[in-house]
């Protein structure tokens, strides 16, 4: 399930809903991403997440489908917020449910790595009264690259590897 929204989410209720009435699910792995107040330099007072409405939902749905195809999962949940957020605010919740913990953990880590590099979100940080767009990080590309298969790396419309 994919939700792209500006409002906050209730983690407990969202996770509980994933396994309710599905007694074959033994494992719920999840990840919450929060706004950290540590910017590159200085103090972060807020950040604004911009996204590409329409494309975001499309990319997240593809990501969900890929996770479901790669691991024996019951369900996948991705909730991603946009708009202006303060330090400590919840930004993203990913979860994967399965019979077994290994599949749930791996799928959840996969979702988070790919979200960082495939979902069209851009981050404007407000630091010491100035607003700056945050640059992409090489280690995020590296983290996503470890999930790359030969098949997907040859897709014509994929993100260029050299950028």
């Amino acid at each position, binding site marked *: 399930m994919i939700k792209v929204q500006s409002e906050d989410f209730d983690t407990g209720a969202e996770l509980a809903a994933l396994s309710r009435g599905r007694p074959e699910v033994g494992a719920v792995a999840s990840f919450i991403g929060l*706004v950290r107040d540590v910017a590159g330099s200085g103090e972060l007072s807020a950040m604004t997440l911009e996204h590409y409405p329409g494309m975001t939902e499309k990319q997240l749905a593809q990501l969900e489908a890929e996770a479901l195809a790669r691991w024996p999962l019951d369900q996948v949940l991705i909730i991603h917020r946009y708009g202006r957020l303060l330090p400590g605010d919840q930004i993203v919740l990913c979860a994967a449910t399965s019979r077994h913990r290994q599949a749930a953990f791996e799928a959840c880590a996969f979702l988070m790595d790919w979200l960082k590099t495939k979902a069209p979100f*851009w981050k404007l940080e407000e630091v010491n009264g100035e607003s700056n767009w945050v640059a992409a990080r090489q280690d995020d590309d590296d983290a996503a690259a470890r999930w790359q298969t030969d098949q997907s790396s040859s897709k014509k419309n994929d993100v260029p590897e050299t950028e």
Partner: protein
Amino acid sequence: MKLLYFAWLRDRVGKSEETVNLPASVTTVGQLTAWLARQSDGHAAAFDDPIGVHCAVNQEFARDDVPVGPDDEVAFFPPVTGGWGG
């Protein structure tokens, strides 16, 4: 053709979207980028360093050699940066 700009590309171009009439010579993302860079000082600043510019055609990431036509929705933006701190 409908064009969308995000993040600092929008700041430099000075608008979040525009509709353009393409010359017949522009048929790929790469040609479109080169053509747009000549449309205004703002466009030039935005497309100055094409390495830092990503593109999506009809909401799918697209390389320079992907074809584009008048009915496509084409978006330009910096590399995506995710949201959270970790």
